[in-house]
């Protein structure tokens, strides 16, 4: 059997079942390793001023989570969802309304402060519920129409949050959200204190959020992996491959698609809750269509359907979006000045100066990445082996040779 192309089946015992030659497994291992050493490394490299970077990494983790969730919908089940940010918003606002003083100034006149850990679960179920509500009547639509419907939903949700100002504070957003607390936790040399148990540990230091995010991601990746290799995961793949044949095999395509949709939505809600807690602010402007497309871009670029690919794609896009594109204007202006083209930095008429003009590149860059990926490398950076064959039409290692000699 040609090893490189065929999947692995191993004996009992999960350690022996791990195939270290499998590219996916190594990617997971690398990602986990990097995640563990990252904070220490950063603090060392910046001489103790790396907290901002750790915080950014935690934010990136939110997007990785979102990409993983959208991957279930788009990558596993093959449904295009263009309004994924709506569930993100729902999760965030769930936290904002139920873990702050917000409800005190609404007609309810009574603030609610539900603990963060409980709200994570609540957000999961609320988002899943909305996913099911949206999906139930619309999932039988053709792909194009489903995409538009999800887009419409993605436009409606933030607008509703913005318009219902008495409840949601409208454009200003809800701020001063509760800080997540643990009844007991440990602190040690990494925080500059001796090893000890701390009571009422508050999540103020971004590093705490970072550790939490890594832990959550590990758990979630394991869960999604389980799903992929289960009855449900196979049903999703079958639907994506050939819906008619899938139905003929007894798969209820509607409920199976609905599950993908609801589960995808629940991840988004989960991420939204975390996001709200960390940022301590939610406002309707953070959940626009651009956010939905950003996440889609992460899934597409990373390799639809492939979990580690999607994670890498998410990190890549995050870095491009929040680091490269943010700093590009100053880099470019600086470079122009250095080579004697400094006059380009000055605004003239409709020309806003090289720095500002560079900043305007974001839409174009996004669009180009999407189009070029679909045209040139539709299987993404780290495709699942399935996708690789499906889209790239690469020659496969044949087992026909076996047939010939039969």
């Amino acid at each position, binding site marked *: 059997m040609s090893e490189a192309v065929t999947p692995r089946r191993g004996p009992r015992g999960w350690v022996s079942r791990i195939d270290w030659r499998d590219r996916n497994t190594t990617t997971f291992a690398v990602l986990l390793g990097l995640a563990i050493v990252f904070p220490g490394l950063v603090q060392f490299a910046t001489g103790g001023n790396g907290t901002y970077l750790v915080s950014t990494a935690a934010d990136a983790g939110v997007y990785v989570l979102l990409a993983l969730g959208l991957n279930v919908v*788009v990558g596993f089940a*093959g449904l*295009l969802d*263009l309004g994924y940010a709506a569930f993100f918003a729902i999760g965030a606002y769930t936290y904002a309304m139920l873990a702050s003083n917000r409800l005190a100034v609404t007609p309810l006149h009574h603030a609610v402060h539900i603990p963060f850990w409980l709200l994570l679960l609540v957000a999961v179920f609320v988002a899943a519920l909305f996913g099911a509500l949206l999906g*139930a*009547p*619309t999932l*039988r*639509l*053709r*792909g*194009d*129409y489903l*995409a*538009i*419907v999800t*887009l*419409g*939903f993605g*436009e*409606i949700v933030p*607008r*509703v949050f*913005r*318009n219902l100002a008495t409840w949601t504070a409208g454009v200003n957003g809800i701020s001063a959200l509760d800080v997540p607390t643990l009844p007991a936790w440990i602190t040690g040399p990494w925080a500059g204190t001796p090893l000890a148990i701390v009571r009422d540990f508050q999540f103020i230091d971004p590093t705490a959020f970072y550790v939490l995010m890594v832990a959550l991601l590990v758990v979630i990746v394991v869960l999604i992996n389980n799903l992929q290799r289960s009855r449900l995961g196979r049903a999703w793949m079958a639907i994506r491959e050939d*819906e008619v044949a899938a139905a003929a095999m007894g798969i209820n395509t*509607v409920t199976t698609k609905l599950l993908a949709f609801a589960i995808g939505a629940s991840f988004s809600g989960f991420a939204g809750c975390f996001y709200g807690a960390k940022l301590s602010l939610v406002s309707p402007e953070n959940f626009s*269509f651009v956010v939905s*497309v950003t996440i*889609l871009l992460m899934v*597409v670029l990373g390799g*639809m359907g492939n979990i580690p690919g999607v994670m890498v794609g998410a990190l890549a896009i995050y870095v491009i979006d929040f680091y490269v594109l943010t700093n590009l204007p100053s880099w470019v202006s600086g470079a122009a000045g250095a080579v004697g083209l400094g006059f380009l930095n000055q605004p003239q008429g*409709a020309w*806003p100066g090289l720095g500002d*003009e560079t900043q*305007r*590149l*974001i*839409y*174009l*860059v*996004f*669009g*180009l*990445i*999407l*189009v070029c990926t*679909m*045209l040139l490398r*539709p299987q993404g950076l780290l495709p699942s082996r399935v996708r690789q064959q*499906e*889209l790239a039409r690469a020659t496969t290692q044949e087992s026909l040779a076996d047939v010939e000699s039969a």
Partner: protein
Amino acid sequence: MLHTLRRIRATLAGPLGTAVLAVLALLVIVFVIVPNVISQGLGLFVQILAYGVADGAIYALIALGYTLVYGIIELINFAHGDVFTLGAFVSLPLLSAFGLVEGKSGGAHLVLGLLAVFLITMLVIGLVNVAIERVAYRPLRNAPRLAPLITAVGMSFILEGIMYLWRGAFNVHYPDLLPGNRIPITSGASIGAKDVIVVVIAALLVGLFSLFLSRSRLGKAMRATAQDRDAALLMGIDINQTIALAFFLGAVLAAAGGIIFGLYFNSIRFDLGFESGLIAFTAAVFGGIGNVPGAALGGLVIGLVQAFSNAYVASQWSDVIIFAILILVLVFRPTGLLGMRVPEK
């Protein structure tokens, strides 16, 4: 629950559904429109009506492009709304080139100049759209369905990105060239010359387009390809050319819509196409994807909905209402008012 939904949809698909829609429309008129007319006056009502029709005419032009392309290759061209905006953007320098300046141009100079601007812009944008199809959609014609959809989204971003780079993030002023006269209807109620002009131009374009579709050889080829691609192929119809033509014509109409939008609203922005496109798509679906009168009717209705919602409800809810209509139509009556094509698998 899903079973009852299917049954509801089946009943609504027929004449009963049309009756339900008519009843809903009547309810809206009685409970929303009439009280407001009484409280805010007939003059305002007529103005809103005129505005709604003009607005709707623009949406109809965009909607036609969606329906045309969808009819032929069953792809919702996500970038279509941005093609519309591009038309407006491209026409701006052309207006100056032809010496059409706000407040200073009139008469024959205005009419001929505008005609030239229209024709050139329409041609250019038409060709741009053909190029887009050739480069971004044609290679993916046999790929899994997700691929061209995603590419279309990317294309939309590219177009918006170009306009963003060109003119920045904020509103760009578009010259106010149309006469601002008001035409009195009854005492206290008048409509603008602009409203009339916009509707006349749109109606002309739609009419010409309809004629082309039904009478010309190419038009017939397009309709044949839309109905049955394989049969059309067997008849010797050049599918690639037909598809290119569909993209060309759709863009031509959208570009005209863009210019009209600029002339009417006097302000354009790089991301105008996203929302307008989505609203125009709602119009296409509402009227019935796949036919010209459907797109026109849908545009009209959605334009009126937007106008009355802005005036009598609150402008921040207009989009929500329209997008809700989109979802509801697709859920309960996917064929729309006049359509035949069902958006189900």
